């Protein structure tokens, strides 16, 4: 699906003292897409985000928003009213939830009468309708971050930047918020850039994924492309831990899902645990520690999923070896040194990769067909 480019960054460099902390030759944002920036701490994710948001002037390079170069302070000020940002810390004002949500509108000079319906609408959409008059300092972490999201979305930003927005939350709250955010992003079609080190978050939210290391983008591409076809060992180590496949639910019975998974060499059946509607498109993930390798299909095993493939690479990985496989899709498995020698695993060796139905990780998304 092709989308118009609304933001262009070229030859970006950010120096801190004499150190270069960011170097990005080119990055475009397309209207309506969600781009996730992943990478370890210190990879430059936040620096890139702040630079794209116009909040950190780059040492060198150019930024264009809707064809206009952001050159002077006035350009950047104008751009700042077209975007907004949500940080890891909700950074709420010492005021009520309603006053917080209204703050950006107030800065734009909207009257109280103009602000109120929008504030109430967005409070409701983020489940804050009953908290409008609560002082911000009495909110839980999840409620505070919801308020920060409402304060951002009420501005109808053309680009929304999110800097690890859920990292400080417990996993249940995070799951709920990621869920709500993915709904709202899909509903509003907001262009967004999010930094995260949670692969699950990126898989739930993003269309495209950029993996960063040492201030550079080492790989940028569609979500599945990057996760399933890491271009270098760093990306593979960082995100290739999980294979993501697109599948369609054929039937669902007794808590077992029968999926049809598309591969280069034709469709294959896969069994997973979970609930979904027949016909629904889902993403399925498999982690390497759950994949077992053998030389032929083992009918006595409880593993319901078996895929013949070829070993492409053997990488020492701590006490294990990581085996990269081509099963018509990218798959990795962890094996012990003993298995490595018993199975004589080396590039080119045909093997059968199998995993249990419980090892298949289901990811449901809004409008998946359109996006992938």
């Amino acid at each position, binding site marked *: 699906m092709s989308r118009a480019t609304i933001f262009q960054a070229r030859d970006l460099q950010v120096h801190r003292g004499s150190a270069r902390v960011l170097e990005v030759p080119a990055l475009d944002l397309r209207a309506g897409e969600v781009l996730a920036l992943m990478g370890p701490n210190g990879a430059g994710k936040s620096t890139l985000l702040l630079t794209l948001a116009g909040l950190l002037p780059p040492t060198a390079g150019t930024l264009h928003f809707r064809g206009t170069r952001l050159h002077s302070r006035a350009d950047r000020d104008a751009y700042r009213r077209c975007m907004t940002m949500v*940080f890891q810390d909700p950074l709420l004002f010492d005021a009520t939830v309603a006053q917080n949500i209204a703050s950006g509108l107030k800065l734009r000079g909207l009257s109280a009468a103009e602000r109120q319906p929008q504030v109430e609408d967005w409070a409701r959409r983020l489940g804050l309708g009953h908290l409008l008059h609560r002082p911000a300092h009495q909110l839980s972490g999840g409620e505070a971050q919801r308020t920060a999201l409402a304060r951002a979305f009420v501005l109808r930003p053309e680009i929304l930047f999110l800097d690890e927005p859920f990292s400080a939350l417990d996993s249940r709250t995070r799951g709920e918020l990621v869920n709500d955010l993915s709904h709202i992003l899909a509903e509003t079609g907001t262009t967004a850039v999010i930094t995260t080190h949670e692969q699950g978050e990126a898989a739930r939210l993003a269309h495209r994924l950029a993996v960063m290391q040492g201030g550079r983008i080492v790989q940028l591409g569609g979500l599945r492309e990057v996760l399933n076809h890491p271009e270098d060992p760093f990306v593979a180590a960082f995100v290739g831990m999980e294979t993501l496949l697109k599948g369609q639910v054929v039937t669902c019975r007794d808590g077992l899902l029968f999926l049809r998974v598309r591969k280069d060499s034709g469709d294959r059946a896969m069994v997973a645990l979970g609930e979904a509607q027949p016909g629904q498109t889902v993403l399925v993930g498999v982690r390497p520690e759950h994949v077992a390798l053998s030389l032929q299909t083992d009918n006595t095993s409880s593993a319901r999923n078996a895929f013949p493939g070829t070993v492409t690479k053997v990488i020492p990985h701590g006490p294990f070896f990581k085996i990269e496989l081509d099963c018509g899709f990218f798959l990795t498995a962890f094996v012990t040194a003993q298995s490595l020698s018993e199975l004589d695993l080396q590039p080119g060796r045909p093997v059968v990769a199998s995993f249990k139905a419980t090892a298949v990780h289901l990811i449901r998304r809004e409008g998946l067909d359109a996006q992938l």
Partner: protein
Amino acid sequence: MELIWEGLRKALELLLRLDPEVLRITLLSLKVSGIATFISVVLGLGLALTVALNAFPGKRLVIALMNTGMGLPPVVVGLFVTVLLWRNGPLGFLGILYTPTAIILAQAVIATPIIAGLSLAALQHLPPGLRLQILALGATRTQMIWLLLKEARLPLLAAIMAGFGGVISEVGASIMVGGNLKGSTRVLTTATVMETSRGNFEIAFALSFILLVLAFSVNALLTHLQQRSRRR
């Protein structure tokens, strides 16, 4: 003990009688320290904002100097301002030594670092990302500064109270640059010193009580403003 009760009685009597001399001294104290505090708020807050919002070489040194300035002894300030305003001094041509203006100047020198130092601490105590968050919400630079001040309003009001408290109660600088001239530069503290040295303890006590009531009233007003904003 009797002396204190006598002083209280005398203070009440002077107040109820609206003794013109006491009234004049009280109003002058309020006026001089009020103006000095106002000047210090403008200078101190400006300085604190400049330091808080900018990165520059020597920033730590400036902060250290500001913090040292918070402890400036009023007599030292009095000495320097006197020398500065002395007839042959660099600012002697102004002819303001031994006038209320000189006291305002000296008190502003005392209160500015207090307000600057405490305001800087208040601003630096705000979450580090708040400035970027405010800009990301579309604020202009002026709006951003206003919102930061609003977020730090509690400790900033405390800074103003500390500044006012420091100058309404100081005596060293006032007596040196003002001269405690009757009807012109006599303020509550200098008058108290003088009456005590003369053995007029009742009047000294009376003036002290007025000073306490004054300091309490002004701080009560600021505290009211501060806590009202808290309850929202």
